[in-house]
C-alpha cells in the first residue's frame, strides 16, 4: 500500500503572548485505504492534527505530504482545490446547508468543483441511496433526524470521490444505534472504494473497530496500536506510558 499522507516533524504553536504548543514534532504516515482513529483527551491536539491533514490549518513548522506532493506551503486557492478534490469532511454536527435539501447538499462539493448540474444530481442521488436515504432526497435538514442528517453529511463527504475522508467526532452527537449505523456505513464504503478514513473520536468502542489507533496527549503521539486480526498490537511506547 502506498503512503497517502506523510507528516514530518509537524509543529503547531498558537499564541498571543502565551504560547501554546498544540502539536509537538509529530511524525506520521498514513497508508491508502487505512481506517485510522485518533483518540486523546480534550485539548490534546487531535483536532489540530486533523485540521492540518484536512488542509484547513497551516503548521508553524514541519511538512505535510499528500500523495507524494509537499503541500505544506500551498496557496489558499490550491488548498481549496485540494480540499475539494482529495478530501471529504464529516463533522460532529452535520453542518448541512439549512436552505438546501438532501440532494442539493450532497451536490454542493460537485458544483463547487464545476461538475455539470445533472451529473452532480445523479451522483448525489446514487450516494443517498447508498446511505439508505432513497426516500428522503427532497427533505431539508430540519425535516430529518440527527442520524439521517449525519448520513447525508457522509454522502456529501464522499460526493467528490475524495481519497481521504476526515471525520471529527462524526458520531459524537448521535445515539449508539445511529452511531453504529454510521460506522458500518463508513466501513462498507471503505471496503467498496478503498478510501482512507481518519476519524477523531472520544468513543473507544468505535476506535477499536478501526485498523489503527493513535493516542495523542499534549500534542504528541504517545501510543499507537495496530489491528492484527481481532487483536490490537501495542507498540513499546504505550506500555511505558
Amino acid at each position, binding site marked *: 500500500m502506498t503512503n497517502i499522507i506523510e507528516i514530518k516533524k509537524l509543529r503547531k504553536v498558537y499564541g498571543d503572548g502565551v504560547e501554546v504548543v498544540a502539536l509537538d514534532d509529530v511524525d506520521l504516515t498514513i497508508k491508502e485505504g487505512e481506517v485510522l482513529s485518533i483518540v486523546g483527551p480534550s485539548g490534546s491536539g487531535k483536532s489540530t492534527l486533523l485540521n492540518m491533514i484536512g488542509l*484547513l490549518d497551516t503548521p508553524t513548522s514541519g511538512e505535510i505530504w499528500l500523495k507524494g506532493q509537499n503541500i505544506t506551503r500551498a496557496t*489558499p486557492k490550491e488548498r*481549496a482545490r485540494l480540499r475539494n478534490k482529495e478530501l471529504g469532511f464529516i463533522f460532529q454536527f452535520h453542518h448541512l446547508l439549512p436552505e438546501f435539501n438532501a440532494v442539493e447538499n450532497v451536490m454542493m462539493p460537485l458544483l463547487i468543483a464545476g461538475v455539470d448540474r445533472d451529473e452532480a444530481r445523479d451522483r448525489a442521488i446514487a450516494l443517498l441511496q447508498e446511505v439508505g436515504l432513497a426516500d428522503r432526497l427532497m427533505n431539508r435538514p430540519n425535516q430529518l433526524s440527527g442520524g439521517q442528517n449525519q448520513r447525508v453529511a457522509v454522502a456529501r463527504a464522499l460526493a467528490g470521490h475524495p481519497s481521504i475522508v476526515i471525520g471529527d467526532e462524526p458520531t459524537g452527537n448521535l445515539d449508539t444505534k445511529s452511531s453504529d449505523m454510521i460506522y458500518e456505513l463508513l466501513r462498507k464504503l471503505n471496503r467498496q472504494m478503498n478510501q482512507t478514513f481518519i476519524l477523531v473520536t472520544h468513543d473507544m468502542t468505535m476506535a477499536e473497530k478501526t485498523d489503527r489507533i493513535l493516542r495523542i496527549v499534549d500534542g504528541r503521539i504517545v501510543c499507537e496500536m495496530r489491528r492484527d486480526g481481532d487483536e490490537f498490537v501495542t507498540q513499546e511506547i504505550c506500555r511505558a506510558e
Partner: protein
Amino acid sequence: MFELSIAERHILGNPRMVLFTVLSVALAVGVIVVLIGLTEGYRENLIENTVENSPHVTVDPKEDEDYIYLYRTLSAIAREDPEVLAVSPRLVGRAAAKYKDKVEGVTFIGADPIQEDILLRIQEDVVWGDYYDLRFKRFAAVVGSDLADDLELKRGDDFRLTRQDVTIQVKTVGIIDTGTGLDQTLVYIPLETAQDLLGEGDVVTEVGIRLSEIDAAPAVAADLNNKTRYKAESWQEKSRDILEQLDTQQIYSAIFYLLIFIISGFGIANTMIMIISRRTKEIGILMAMGADGISIMKIFVLESVILGPPSALLGGGLAYVAAKLIGTIEVPAEIYIADRMTVILDLGTFVYVAVFAILVNFLAGIYPAFKASRLDPVKAIAKE
C-alpha cells in the same frame, strides 16, 4: 454557478431582513426620483413660464431713447428672418385701474391681438370672453382673473385706466387666468388705446418676437443687433440669472442625492454583516468543501446586488405614486411659479437612479463579502 444558488437561497431564507433592506433602498430611490422629478418640473415650469410668458427675443429702444418710434420698419426687418413666427410691437406700462371705489395698480400691455396671441398664446389662458375682440373694440380690455376679483369687476363691466392725467374708460371683454402671479396685475388693451394712455404718439416700448425654434434666439438677437441700433436680447440672456441659479442648485441636489445613497449603503452593509455573522459556520463548511475566497466573496456580493433591482423597481413605484399625489396638491401661484407642482418622471431619470442603486448595493456588499472570504475556516466551523 453554485454561488448564485446559495445567494438566492440565503435571500429566500431571510425574508424579513431582505424586506427591510429592499425597503430602505427603495425609499432612497423613491425619494431621489421624486426630488429629481420635482427639480426638473420646477426647472421646466420656470423655463416654460419664462419662454411662454415672455418673447423669445425682445427688442428694446435705442440706448438714448425711451420708446421705439420706427417700430413698423423694425418689425419688417425682423420678419425677414425665416425662424421668425410673429413680431408683436408692444406698449407696456403701469397705470391705475379704478372700478367703483376700488383701485389697483396694473400693468397694461397694448398690442395687436393677432401677433400678440402668436407671441405669447394669450387666447389659451382666456377663461371667459375673447382676446380677439380687442381688434375691433378700441375701448376694451382683457383682465387678469385675480385683478378682476380684487376690483370686484364683473363680466362686461366698464372700468377706468388712469395714467398721470389721462383716463380712459374700457369695457371688460375677457378674463385671463395664466396660473401665475401676473393674474393680479395684467390688463390687455389694443395698441392704439395704450398709445392714447401714454400720450407719446405712435410709439411702442418693445417689440416681441416669437421663433419657431427657441434655441435660435441668441442668433436671431445677434443678427438684429447687427442690422439695427436697437437692443435685441434673447430669452436666455434675459433669464441668465435664473438659469445659472438652476445649474448651481443641481450641483447641490446631486450632493444631497449622493448622501441619501451613502446612508442607504450603510444600511445594506449592516444587513450584510449581520447575515454573514449568522452564517459564519456555513462559510467555514463551504470552505472545507473547497470553495475558495473568491467564491465566498461572490456569494455575498451577489446577495447584495440581487436586492438592487427589486429595490429600484419598488422605489420607482413609490416615486410614481408620490408624483401623482404631489400633482394633486394645489399651491398658491404667488409662492410657486404655477398653481400645481409638476413632477417630471422620465424613464432616463429612473434608469439612472436604478443603476446607481444597484451600484450602491454592489459597493455596500463588497466589504462584508471580503471579510467573509478571509475567514479562517477552522475558527468559522468552530464558531458557536
